[in-house]
């Protein structure tokens, strides 16, 4: 491969976006969890926070793997293989909160499962609503 394009690339915006999204999503889910805890749904709150913690972890891992995957993307079979491998690892990681929640009474299983969808929901909310208002808009270039 002649000259890795990623070495010349400007990835600061990408990392900034990833950090901002992960932090925002986790903060909102912890707030929701706290509210639920105060309201008396302790197990659900813990499950939600546990699930969203692993969702954020998964997202960060995925974001770290992506540039590498882009490098090998010219060969689609290899790219798919790497995607399958990384997805397998990340799914195994995301299985952890589900197993913990299923085995223990202190975490609500359904809340943990819902927590795993923190990042997709956050992305959707971010793009569909927050991007409309300039205060929250990502600084482009």
């Amino acid at each position, binding site marked *: 491969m002649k000259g890795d394009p990623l070495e010349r690339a400007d990835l600061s915006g990408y990392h900034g976006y990833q950090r901002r999204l992960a932090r925002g999503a986790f903060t909102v889910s912890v707030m929701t969890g706290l509210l639920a805890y105060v309201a008396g749904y302790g197990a659900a709150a813990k499950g939600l926070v546990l699930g969203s913690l692993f969702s954020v972890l998964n997202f960060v891992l995925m974001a770290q793997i992506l540039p590498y995957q*882009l490098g090998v993307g010219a060969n689609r079979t290899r790219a798919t293989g790497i*995607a399958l491998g990384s997805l397998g690892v990340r799914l195994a990681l995301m299985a952890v909160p*589900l197993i913990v929640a299923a085995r223990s009474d202190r975490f609500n299983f359904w809340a943990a499962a819902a927590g795993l969808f923190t990042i997709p929901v956050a992305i959707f909310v971010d793009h569909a609503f927050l991007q409309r208002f300039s205060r929250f808009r990502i600084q482009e270039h």
Partner: protein
Amino acid sequence: MAFDHVTWIKAASYLGSGLAVGFGAIGAALGEGYTAGKANQVLAYRPRMSGDILKTMLVGQAVAESAAIFALVISMLLVFGGLGGPTPLSAWAYLGAGLAAGLSAVGSGVGSGFPAAAACEGIGRQPKASGQVTLIMLIGSAITQTPCIFGLVIAFLLMFVDFSAKPYYPYWAALLGAGLSTGLAAIGPGAGGGLVGASACKSVARHPEAQRPVTTAMLVGIGTTQSTAIYGFLISLILLFKSFPASTSYVPSFALLGAGFAMGFGGIGPGIGEGITGGYALDQVGRIPEKATLLTRTMLVGQAVSESTGIYSLVVALLLVLNA
């Protein structure tokens, strides 16, 4: 060799769990691989854009992965949910749940990859339209997840509705057929919806001012594409909740299994075909937005005709269910 039903139920739920997460991962990985390939092509002539392209890819894949996470939740519930049952009927229910969740995640996983790839390409071509393109991509891949949600609902029903009082024959086939019908029928509409979404992203990148007609046409296109998934869902519900008399032969069981296969496989072709139609139509909507009405109407006619094979499958499946 004879095992008691507890062994069978355990074995079936482990098998179902493996199928669910395996199929789910394969679908999402195929989608991601496709996205990576397209993104790499764009990167070759736009190396400066790598940050934006990576961002789009990340957003697209994070949403696409929810199909795999649905399958993961079902799979973990099957293994660790403490499920069991007094009769061997539960074994078939758990196998059906795994198949429904896994197979339906294949279509949505692959399908969500197409809009993500098209969005990477579009942003490389028209960096100024990145906001609109990302929004269209998100809407497209979110609706593409609908067949997967049908699979999830059927899997939950199979796991948590109590079928233990029902006779073993022919209910084993009804439960397995319910899983197969929704799971297989979700593959085509998932992939087809992705094709429509991909063309919508391309169109918006080409003509950002045509965002409104493109969004409307995309919603109509994906909506009609998913009708076969709805047929599969309906057949599953009928299989699950219609009461069948206990039988003393294999005939009703195989009729019900046949109904599941008929609607399941029958939903694949029309789903993909309607998606291809919608894709081409949306390409042209983006090219000449002022002809959007004519194109949407032609698209609907074409989709309606290609849907007819799906309706034949529905009729055959209904006849098989009623015959049982």
